[in-house]
């Protein structure tokens, strides 16, 4: 079921029988109809194995399952909410940025360090995201939270995109990311521009960038 944006910080989801939705715990603002909220101890889909995987990877955020018939409004902490509609591709996003997503999407955890070797490890440290990220695959909608408004930048093989690691929100498609440095002697003598590290995304897809360099 698609999410409809009520304003920049609130989304509404229509839910019917047999459908379900996962959302961050406590992110419901209001609802109509008969809807139940059950805490999801496993933190998502995929049984106990996936749950342990997520716990180890530090990608376990408390989620709840939303079921029933009616409309539910979500929002959290006054953060901006961006709706991403997936049509079969994969979305890579930090688990704590997920506000709500369709129950039909396949959720997984991915090791980001495998992309780009040692630099991949450094990337996790610089962005403060750690080595793992959550993946969502399939057909459905995802509501992602960001600090400030979000823009979508297309990535094509001819045009890689460089993003400030702190302003990076999520990306989708077949995208490789690597951390590029622009450290020069100026940084060493304290005359850096404050843009020493960038995330270089190349391939085919879209990257979501927030208007702030603050984490959630």
């Amino acid at each position: 079921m698609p999410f409809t944006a009520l304003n920049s910080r609130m989304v509404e989801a229509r839910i019917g029988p047999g459908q379900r939705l996962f959302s961050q715990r406590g992110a419901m603002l209001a609802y109509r109809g008969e809807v139940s909220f059950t805490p999801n101890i496993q933190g998502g889909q995929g049984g106990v194995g996936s749950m342990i995987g997520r716990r180890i990877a530090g990608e376990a955020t408390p989620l709840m399952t939303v079921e029933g018939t009616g409309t539910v409004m979500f929002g959290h902490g006054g953060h901006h909410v961006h709706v991403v509609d997936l049509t079969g591709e994969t979305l890579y996003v930090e688990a704590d940025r997920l506000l709500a997503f369709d129950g039909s999407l396949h959720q997984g955890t991915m090791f980001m360090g495998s992309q780009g070797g040692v630099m991949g490890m450094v990337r996790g440290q610089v962005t403060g995201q750690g080595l793992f990220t959550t993946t969502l695959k399939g057909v459905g909608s995802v509501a992602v939270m960001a600090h400030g408004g979000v823009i979508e930048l297309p990535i094509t093989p001819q045009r890689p995109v460089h993003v400030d690691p702190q302003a990076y929100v999520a990306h989708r498609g077949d995208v490789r990311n690597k951390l590029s440095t622009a450290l020069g002697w100026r940084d060493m003598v304290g005359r850096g521009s404050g843009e020493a590290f960038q995330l270089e995304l190349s391939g085919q897809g879209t990257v979501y960038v927030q208007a702030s360099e603050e984490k959630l």
Partner: protein
Amino acid sequence: MTGDAVKAKNGVMVAYDGQMSFKKMTGGGEGLRGMVTRRLTGEQMAVMEVKGHGTCYFADRASEINLVRLQGEKLYVEADNLLCTEAALRTGTTFTGLRGASQGHGLFTTTVEGSGQAAIISDGPAVVLRVTKQSPLQVDPGAYVAHTGDLRQHFQSGVNFRTFLGEGSGEAFQIRFEGEGLVYVQPSERNTVGGEV
């Protein structure tokens, strides 16, 4: 403004042109009885009266402002969320029952009555949701800002054994609105007792 007055929360004026005078109204400008009631109910508002000729601008902590036009009906709003009202509007306090405690606001709320405009503030842009007899609405106590119209509210809880195991869904309490009216909901949740479980 042309010689008339506006009641506003203390210290929310950001700019004005023309001639303005600001006067603190002790006890919310409701007389001695109103003052005592407010003290007792914990719904104290530090209110000032702005009088004069010209334009006055109000804002508070960069929060979002929603204008509500009242035509004789009653607006229920938390004292913290009320920015300013026209002087023609009467303010008062009412008992809200149990739900107030879960909202972190106490057991009483402020009412605004009469004809004119009132400005309410919310953390992030608020949405106005219509409640009809056929479609009641449940709202997270932390996201509730204000409501108007003929609404009955009661408190419902979804506390079960999971809550006590520390695995609650974070949605243990809701306010259920029934009847005809409008509810203002903000996209952020205040820290409430109910939000923790």
